[in-house]
C-alpha cells in the first residue's frame, strides 16, 4: 500500500512538472484541442458501429452522447 501511495505521488509530481514545462498558450488551448481529438476518436467509433450513417448522422449521435455525458456530470 505504501508503494502504491508513493507511485501515485511520483506520477502526480511528473504530471505537475509536464504542465509547468508547457507554455501558457499551449496549456490554455490544450482543452479545446484535446476535446477535438476526443471527438474525432468518438466519431470513428460511431462510424464503425453505424456504417450506414452519413457525416450529419455521426455528428448528431456524437452530440447526443456528449449531452448524455453532460447530464451525468450534472446528476
Amino acid at each position, binding site marked *: 500500500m505504501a508503494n502504491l501511495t508513493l507511485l501515485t505521488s511520483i506520477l502526480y509530481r511528473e504530471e*505537475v512538472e509536464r504542465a509547468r514545462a508547457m507554455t501558457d498558450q499551449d496549456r490554455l*488551448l490544450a482543452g479545446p484541442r*484535446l*476535446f477535438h481529438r*476526443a471527438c474525432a476518436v468518438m466519431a470513428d467509433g460511431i462510424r464503425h458501429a453505424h456504417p450506414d450513417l452519413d457525416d450529419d448522422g455521426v*455528428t448528431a449521435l456524437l*452530440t447526443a452522447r456528449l449531452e448524455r455525458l453532460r447530464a451525468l*456530470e*450534472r446528476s
Partner: protein
Amino acid sequence: MTPDEATLAVIDALESVGLRYLIVGSLASNFHGIPRATQAADFVVDIAMSDVTRLADALPPGLTLQRQVAFETVTGTTRYLITVSGSPFVCALFVCADDPHDLERLRRRLRVSILGRQAFVATAEDTLVTKLRWALIARRGKDVEDVRNIIGVRSSELDWGYLLQWATAHGTGTLLDEIRTSIPQQ
C-alpha cells in the same frame, strides 16, 4: 472551424468590440494548472443587451451567437451561447453579475499573450475561488480535480490570504483544506 480556432475567434471578437471580459472555467484552470479536455470555452462578459448585436456581427462565419439568454440553474447565472458549425464545442458567455466575487475577479483579471494576441484570463486565485464554490454547490468531481491541479502547479505563487478570505466568505474553507492536504508534497 476547430474548437481552439473558435476560442481564439471569440477572444478576437470580444477584443474588437471592446467589451470587458475574462476567460474563466476549465480554460482558466488549464492555463493555471494541468490541462484536460473541455467541451466549452467559458467567458464572463460585462455585456448589455445593446452589445449583443455588435458582438454577433464581429464573429467570423462558422460561429453563431444565440440571441436568447439562458439561465444556468447550478451557478445561478445567465449566459449566451456561441455555437460552432460542425462541432459540438460551444463558447459560453456568462453575463457578469452583481456578485461581489464576480466583480472582483473582473477587476483582478490578467492580461496575457495567446498566439500573438492579447487576452484577459482570471487569476489563479480567482479561478480557485470559483471552482471551490461550484465544487461545493454542484458536487462536480472535475471542479475538485481542477482545484487540486492548480494548487499542485502554482502553490508557491498563490496569494493564500486572498484565497482564504473568499473561501471563508463562501464557506469553502474546509473543502480547500481537504484538497490541499490531498496533494502529494515534492
